[in-house]
């Protein structure tokens, strides 16, 4: 098997534009999620507040399977799902599971009483980040290797050919691919 096919540690990110919600407001919300077992397919453990760290993970919901975080990023709010434990299935299936995880969380957040009308995530684009510099380092080759699987999930998400993949992230950063709907652009 090709190494990139083994990618397990991956992250998916969505952003919300022009929201008044501050990541710190998520602290009680995530605590309530744990209390109410809001995420059925994750073993939720704790909430951590890193809002004192610029460019940090903001407010973190720690689960056994991976972390969810909501943080300030370039003037926007970013919701990140960082998968840490093994995912089942093919690469495409694994990417899909991670994407679903972030989408589910984004919807749950939008439905929270205190965020209604204040928070709406932009679902015309999402980022997929290889959190594994061994299987999938930040190179053009990795980008090409990852693209077929990403195209598959993007096709399902945006419809046939209605998307653009672009490689992002500086030399020392992880491979990050922006998957974007081309219909709106």
């Amino acid at each position, binding site marked *: 098997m090709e190494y990139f096919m083994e990618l397990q540690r991956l992250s998916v990110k969505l952003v919300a534009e022009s929201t008044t919600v501050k990541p710190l407001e998520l602290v009680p919300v995530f605590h309530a999620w744990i209390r109410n077992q809001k995420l059925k397919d994750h073993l939720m453990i704790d909430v951590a507040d890193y809002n004192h760290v610029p460019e*940090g993970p903001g407010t973190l919901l720690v689960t056994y399977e991976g972390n969810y975080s909501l943080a300030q990023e370039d003037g926007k709010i970013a919701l990140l799902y960082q998968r840490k434990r093994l995912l089942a299935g093919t690469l495409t299936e694994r990417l899909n599971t991670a994407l679903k995880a972030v989408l589910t969380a984004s919807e749950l957040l939008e439905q929270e009483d205190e965020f209604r009308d204040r928070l709406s995530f932009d679902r015309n684009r999402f980022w997929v980040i290889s959190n594994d510099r061994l299987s999938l380092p930040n190179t053009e080759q990795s980008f090409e290797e990852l693209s077929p699987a990403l195209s598959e999930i993007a096709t399902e998400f945006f419809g046939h050919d209605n998307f653009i993949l672009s490689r992002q992230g500086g030399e020392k950063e992880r491979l990050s691919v922006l998957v974007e709907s081309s219909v709106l652009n």
Partner: protein
Amino acid sequence: MNSWKEQLSSQIPQDWGKEIDIFETQIELRKRGKLDEKIFAETRLRRGVYGQRYDNGQRHDGEQTQKLAYPSGLLKGPETVWDAPGMLRIKIPFGGVTPDQLDVLAEVAEEYSNGILHVTTRQDFQYHYIHIEDTPDIMRRLAAAGITTREACGNSVRNLTACPKAGVCSGEEFDVTPYARALTDFLLGHPDCQDFGRKVKIAFSGCQGEACGLVMMHDIGALAVKKTRRGKDVHGFALYVGGGLGTVPYQAKLFDAFLPPEELLPISQAIARVFGRLGEKKNRAQARLKFLVVKLGIEEFRRLVWEERQILPDDPHWTSYLDHLPAYGETPLKPPSPLSAEKTLPEGFAEWQRSNVKAQKQTGYAIATVALPLGDLSSDQTRKLADVARRYIGDNIRTTVEQNFVFRWVSEEDLPDLYEDLLEIGLGDSGANTIVDVTACPGTDTCKLGISASRGLAEELRNRLAAKSFEMDEAVRSLRIKVSGCFNSCGQHHVADIGFFGNSRTLNGYKVPHFQVILGGQWAENAGSFGMTIGAIPSRRIPEVVDRITDHFVLVRNQGENFCDFVARIGKKELRSLIENLMKNAPSFEDNPDFYHDWGDPREFTMLDRGIGECAGEVISASQFDLADAEREVFDAQLELEKENYAEADALAYQSMVGASRALVKQQYFDVPEPPDIVVEEFTQRFLDTELFYDKYAKGKFARYLLQRHQQGPVNADADSVHQLIDQAQLFIDAAHACYARCAVE
């Protein structure tokens, strides 16, 4: 290549690589139930792999305790669930770290942790939310950058700390760095440091008067002393022993007023041996070196150590580093320069310079502190900080026990640019080394023993104090605040002007988070004295405590009086009266529910999440470790057999038997040499001739397997012979375990 092991094999020092491979096998053995959970716990602690809150499989959600149904049900230590995320501590000797190392640390933080690098109160780094199965790869990636996690936790010699200004401080006697390096390398994994009842902490300081090295609160503290002999400078150390924080803090005692450098390593080794032999092993609350020094008295302790020193076999490592001392030195990246008066200075620079910048003893250079809120920085910031360092100072970075970084060798002209670059990455906070720069242990955020939210409180105080730092009286500005989440004092509250440690009280029928207030600890004089306990105050009222105490200090202090002297003069009664009413009149839960929550935690406060700590690990003797090693070797032998590597398998199985017998001999003869001939002879004399090894039914039968194989010498191993030998080795090791247990009972 699809493993870090292959990818990095040429970059990892061989012995480090082997140790990590062994740890990986130990993980595998534990998963298969072939390694006892207590031995595994201490094994992983000695590799820096620590437990974390909620790893006992439960958590209070504010209303009730929920079970955390981790998948495997396996344990990695007593009451510590395998799958629960944990902490990893990374040793940074004397805080020295390079930009390339920071890059790797940042990568690891984002790939396996939460993208946060945390600086501890002993110059280390910590990651949280780490899965144990990721740790071997993490260790490999760090090892390839020259960083180890070995003996960062557990009953071992912990990270060796030193003044972050060593080598550039105008007040120092001499640069302690190369001595600190030599002692670190010498003691790391040293056989004489594997049999402690508790941890040993060592610190170096370049002078007596400043705080930087905190020598007086360490198990072993070395203070630089310079003498002149025949017109020449001679270096030595005032060596102190038996200091330590914890529930009851102890000031270290003078062991030797002038220990020459050639005695530094052997005396430390002799201290380790005396501590290993005579230190308390059963009652862990009495097991630190400080208790042994008090029990024996410093004179007797000194006598025993010197006696031990005399019989130590010579070791060339003791002095080989001395040859390299003259060549030791740091290379500045830039030539020296003055900060020109004409230069337009960025906004905020003056304030930053006042608190965060000190002149170096080398003209034209400065030391700049990079202040980290709560000791945290993100992976992105870490990488950018590494680049900033590359631009201005190269490799000359250190971490500090106040959870910051210092940049050394900043050419003074660069200071304004450096400041702006730091601001850009969110690391330009001023207020380092002032009351704003609050230190805190992990507390209830991640520590299993935490009672109150030390970090939550520290954050609250930092925000409030930063907001008014401009109007603050200078005497108040220069105070230090340190917060621990419980009495164990990881946040070093005993040596702060204003210290707090977490506890709880029941008010109106509810548990309420509190902090005990400790005033007047001395940070200067190498943590020269400890503070005075004033009283426990509800957590939410602690900011008010800080205001009242500091206001009173400004009001009634004598001209030039420092805070410690002020506290001593005013006395406990008056200080307590200042805050006494904050202990009473709790609002009702209905009127003010916040009062019943800790800082930063919206759950109702509870003590139910406390677990058992791993600070002391399990007391596992050197013999028990050796027996566990023998188990691992016989396991490896089986793997080699499966790969049809018969010679390797045979050698491993034989080695496992010799190792197990050596483990037993060690109980009576600690320094038994390694050659198999000697081991087998000693084993025969001490355990067979005496029949100590005999059990009721098999008598000495299993020992014969060892003797037979030993007498055979080199053999042409084949599948059958190896198979047989492995079975025999397993039986012998089992019998050795049983023998060890019998002897231990006796």
